[in-house]
């Protein structure tokens, strides 16, 4: 078959931006039909505009890219290093990966990150649960089984990323959370009644009062476009679901978002907008931020959640800190702070970092 025939068929339509080349995809955000080259240009330019408008970075900053080896962080590493060169951001970029110690999953995805280190010329730092906490996820699952394991993993990961960032002496961590992820998190926080998280989950930068702020350059970037970009550019990423993750609740929210997107792609941006525009009533009690007495990490309780979980593991009482028995000391039980954070954190699913 000649290419002329394929052109006519494949929706032989021309790109609505350059009017020259054959359209290769339909943009979910605008419904425009555009060719590959114009897609690369608008995709990168939009992310650049988000970075500039929100002042995500300052010249001379050291930035760690939270790199899992998956599609989002791989595309983020690629695009950020391109934009850094193209627009002279003056950033020192690093890849920061967490090794949870999951055989057959993380060991494979870390191989992808190691290839990315060479492909993009970005120095890589890997911090492991084993080094930080003395336990791998494999060991934790052996002890506690497949219930609540995502709670351990999620809480440990969040802290591990901060610790790794401190070791790299970076000013900020950039993560690959995309528009679909954020819309999903808005819905989940509504479903859980988690007002504290609902009010900050749409922020493009979080933790500015904490040790190391985090930002989400892909806040307005559709997952479809990230995957298309990775596919067309033949970027090397890893795509296997964690072997320990049932992810049921988040899975429902995800599927619901994808169903909505099929009917009306704008829904994703609109859910984010709704999340941003929520007004939190002043009578809602928000958790007070303090520091953990044991490790100094931010915590609204006497001990941070990671220390409570770790204490349970080390004492052979892994249920400590799970479910309702959340305090470890009797005086804390007598005097519980009215906090939504500690309660809701139990139901956190693994996979991505929540804000």
């Amino acid at each position: 078959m000649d290419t002329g025939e394929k052109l006519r068929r494949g929706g032989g339509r021309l790109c609505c931006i350059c009017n020259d080349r054959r359209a290769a995809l339909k943009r979910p955000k605008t419904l425009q039909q555009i060719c590959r080259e114009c897609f690369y240009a608008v995709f990168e330019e939009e992310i650049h505009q988000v970075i500039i408008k929100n002042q995500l970075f300052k010249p001379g900053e050291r930035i760690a890219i939270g790199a899992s080896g998956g599609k989002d962080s791989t595309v983020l590493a690629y695009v950020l290093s391109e934009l850094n060169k193209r627009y002279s951001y003056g950033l020192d970029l690093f890849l920061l990966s967490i090794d949870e110690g999951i055989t057959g999953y993380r060991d494979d995805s870390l191989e992808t990150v190691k290839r990315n280190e060479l492909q993009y010329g970005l120095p890589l730092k890997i911090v492991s649960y084993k080094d930080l906490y003395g336990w791998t996820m494999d060991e934790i699952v052996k002890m506690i089984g497949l219930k609540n394991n995502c709670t351990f993993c999620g809480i440990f990961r969040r802290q591990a990323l901060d610790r790794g960032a401190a070791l790299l002496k970076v000013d900020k961590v950039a993560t690959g959370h995309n528009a679909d992820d954020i819309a999903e998190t808005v819905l989940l926080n509504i479903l859980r009644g988690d007002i504290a998280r609902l009010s900050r989950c749409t922020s493009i930068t979080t933790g500015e009062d904490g040790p190391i702020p985090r930002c989400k350059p892909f806040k307005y970037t559709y997952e479809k476009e990230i995957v298309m970009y990775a596919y067309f550019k033949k970027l090397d990423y890893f795509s296997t679901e964690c072997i320990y993750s049932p992810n049921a609740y988040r899975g429902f929210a995800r599927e619901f978002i994808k169903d909505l997107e099929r009917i009306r792609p704008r829904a994703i941006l609109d859910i984010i907008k709704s999340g941003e525009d929520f007004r939190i009533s002043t009578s809602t009690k928000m958790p007070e931020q303090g520091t953990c007495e044991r490790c100094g990490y931010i915590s609204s309780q006497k001990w941070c959640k990671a220390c409570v979980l770790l204490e349970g593991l080390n004492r052979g009482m892994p249920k400590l800190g799970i479910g309702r028995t959340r305090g470890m000391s009797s005086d804390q039980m007598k005097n519980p702070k009215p906090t939504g954070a500690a309660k809701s954190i139990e139901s956190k699913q693994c996979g991505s970092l929540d804000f």
Partner: protein
Amino acid sequence: MQLTVEFGGGLELLCDSVKIHNVNVNVPNGAEKLTMRDFLTWVRQNLIKERPEMFIKGDTVRPGILVLVNDCDWELSGQLETTLEEKDVVVFISTLHGG
């Protein structure tokens, strides 16, 4: 007709971890052309070895799975009504795995 099917983004796990399949598919009796609608049924019956619900929902692919025919988004060519021809390349990529 000869077609090439490629699975990516984790979908290959549903077909014995084989990413690229060179296949031979017949146009259904009485039909003039093979449409993506027919082809999805064929793929589900012949290539998907486990958890078909991860691939199909209702009469089409599960939302969150991207489909490209000859490297062109099938949303531009009529999705299920897209017709296939000899030596076409059909790619299915899941967007649902990991970040």
